[in-house]
Structure formats: C-alpha cells, structure tokens
C-alpha cells in the first residue's frame, strides 16, 4: 500500500505528472474573476466564498481522469487487480494520492487566492478549514467517477457529468462555512455536515469504485 502511494506521488511530481495543474487553474480563475466582476471590495467579497469553492471543485475535476486511466492504458491496473492488494485499498490509496497532489496544495494556497478576491481576514481560517474537510470528499467521489468510466475513450466528459451532482452538497456546505465565517455567524452545522460527507464517502466509496473497476476490467 505504501509502495503504491509513494509511486503515485512520485509519478505526479515528475515531469508530465500533472502536479500543479489544479493549482494553476485555481490561480487563473482567481486572477480573472476580479477583472470580470470589477475590483470593488463589496462585490468581490460577497462572491469570494462561492468562487473559491467552485474553483477548487473544478481544479479537482481537471485531474480526476488520471486516477485510473493511465494505469488502465499501460496495463498496471490489471496487475494491481491480480496483486495481493485488495482493490478497495488500491482505490483508497489512489484517491489519497490524488488529494495529496491536488486538494492539499489548494488548501495551503487558498488564503493567498482569498486575498486576490478580497475575502475578509476573518473568513480565512474558515476557508482553509472548509477546504481541508471538503476536498478529500471531492477526491474520493471523483475516484468513483473515474472507476466507472475507466475503459472509455474520452470518458472525461461522461465522468464530469456523473460526478458533478455528487459534488453539489460538498460545494454548498463548503461555501456556506466560508460565508458564515466571514459574517461571524455560527458554523458548527455546515462543518459537521461537510465532515460527515467526507467520512461517509471515504468509508463507502472505495467499495463501490472497486466493484466498478472489476466490471470494467472484464
């Protein structure tokens, strides 16, 4: 399991691995939005939580199809399926590797992007917390979508259509935590809900994704 995690991280960081792709996309979005909406503080600060969360979600979506597609193309997935590792474990590890290379950098860099969108300082810790709690769910749910579409040519579009509805609850509660944090309102409820979504998907999705992979490998 550790070998697989280390290999996936190494592949992501080496040339052409796609590390930084999500971060770059996030940067482009947060730089462009103020030009589109206008730099007035009131307008930007009002939409900042939503824009930041939509950005995180799309950045995550951008690299999802790499989770299994590359391993499927070069035959590694067949071998992982016949290896002593349980396929559920393979899914969980690959989702974790995806989060470490896509979600975690966004969490760390989010305050900087928040500044670009005039997000109030009071909301920064809440933005980081909401992304920290919510982005793992994006990776795990995405792994399910990637597993469903693994054998398909140009499966990325279908995968996005399948995964986006599943992302909506995370998006709602994530943006809500940041918005309430900015206003100083209580955040306990959305925090509990987003943590619940992440925990439930991390616990259940690997089984569903592994089942989908087994069907697709036939």
């Amino acid at each position: 399991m550790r070998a697989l995690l280390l290999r996936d991280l190494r592949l992501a960081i080496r040339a052409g691995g796609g590390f930084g792709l999500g971060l770059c996309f996030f940067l482009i979005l947060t730089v462009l939005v103020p030009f589109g909406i206008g730099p007035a503080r009131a307008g930007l600060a009002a939409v900042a939580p939503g824009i930041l969360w939509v950005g995180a979600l799309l950045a995550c979506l951008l690299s999802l199809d790499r989770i299994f597609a590359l391993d499927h193309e070069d035959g590694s997935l067949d071998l992982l399926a016949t290896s002593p590792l349980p396929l559920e474990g393979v899914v969980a590890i690959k989702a974790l590797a995806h989060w470490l290379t896509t979600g975690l950098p966004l969490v760390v860099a989010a305050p900087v992007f928040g500044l670009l969108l005039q997000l109030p300082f009071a909301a920064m810790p809440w933005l980081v917390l909401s992304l920290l709690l919510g982005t793992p769910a994006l990776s795990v749910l995405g792994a399910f979508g990637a597993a469903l579409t693994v054998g398909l040519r140009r499966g990325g579009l279908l995968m996005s259509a399948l995964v986006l509805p599943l992302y909506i609850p995370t998006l709602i509660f994530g943006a809500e935590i940041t918005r309430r944090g900015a206003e100083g309102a209580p955040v306990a409820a959305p925090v509990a809900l987003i943590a619940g979504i992440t925990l439930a998907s991390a616990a259940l999705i690997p089984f569903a994704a592994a089942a989908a992979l087994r069907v697709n490998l036939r």
Partner: protein
Amino acid sequence: MIRLRARDLAVSRGGLRVIEGVDVDLSAGDALILQGPNGAGKTTLLRTIAGLQPPAAGTIEAPEESIAYAAHADAVKPTLTAAENLAFWARVFGGSDRGVLARFDLADLAGRPAARLSAGQRRRLGLARLAVTGRPIWALDEPTVSLDRGSVARFTDVLRAHLGQGGIAIIASHLELDLPARVLDLRAHRAAPGRVARPSSFNEAFG
C-alpha cells in the same frame, strides 16, 4: 505441490462465447502453449485464468494468489527508471528484485527512465516483473513480441529455470519456443454461435 486445473472451461468476450470445452491440467514443471489465429480467444482465456474475468462456464482450480499475469501491455511507467519500476512491483507483490535486472540483461539500464528504453528493452522489463512477483504460475500473453533472437533465447532460459523450480507456465505465442511444452490449439474449441455445440451444457441451462 502446485497444480492448475480447469474443467470444461468456456470464456466470453464482450458477452459472446469465444471458446468452450477447454480442459487444462498442469502440475509443477509443466508448460502449455496456446495456439490459434487472431481473435481465437487466447488473451481472453489467459485473463480468465488470471482471475480478471469470471469464466462463462466451467471451473478453474488454482491456489489463491498464485498466478502472475503478463499482458500485451508492459505496465511500465515512462517517468520512473527501470529499477524503480521493478522495485515498485516487487514491493506490491512482496517479492525480491535482487539480481532480477541482471537476469534479464537490464543491469546497465537500471538508472535510465523507462521512456528512453527501446521497445524490446521495455518488454524485457515487463517480463522481469514476473520474476519479482514470486508467483509459481505464469500466464504469458505473447511474451516474445519485440524481442530479438538473443533476448528470446535468454527469456526461454528464464522460463526453463522457472519450470525447473516447480513453476507452471501458460503461454500464448506464435513463435516456437524451445521448451518441452504441450500445445493447446484453440481452433478445436471455438464456440459456435447459434448452434448448440455441446448438448450437455445446453441441458445445464435448463436443469
């Protein structure tokens, strides 16, 4: 004592039966070569035996986690070096990669990214993976593709050593390998669509 048995095996590809009535009984040291034209179902049969898809009918008996499968694709990551690729699979399968690169004549290329290996060298790296799995039954799909004559001879030596240590090999190959092997011609087992080729299995469906 390791043993691989398949009885009255039928396999399907894309929902259509391609082969039926295959009986296989291999014990330690045996090799079986699968022959048949393109589309005869060699790959499908190997994938079924490797456990990647369920048989359409019949049974396969083999000890758990005893089969190493080598497909057309080499499962080699271009950005990792040859040694890193091999070490990864050794750790996944819990085997040892000591001395394996040398046995496949890859020791000089150990530190080279796999993207800069030739097709034959990459093939050898893919085959070297079999040796690090530590599994006794090898299911090989066209293992000699893109290998030169010297490499084929070298790989045959590795295969012979594997069989000598009590291993089993099932090989789909067009090339004549210099091995004491039985041959299974899949043309004789082609499934006939629309025709009940085997009344016993027909009755099974209603029994």
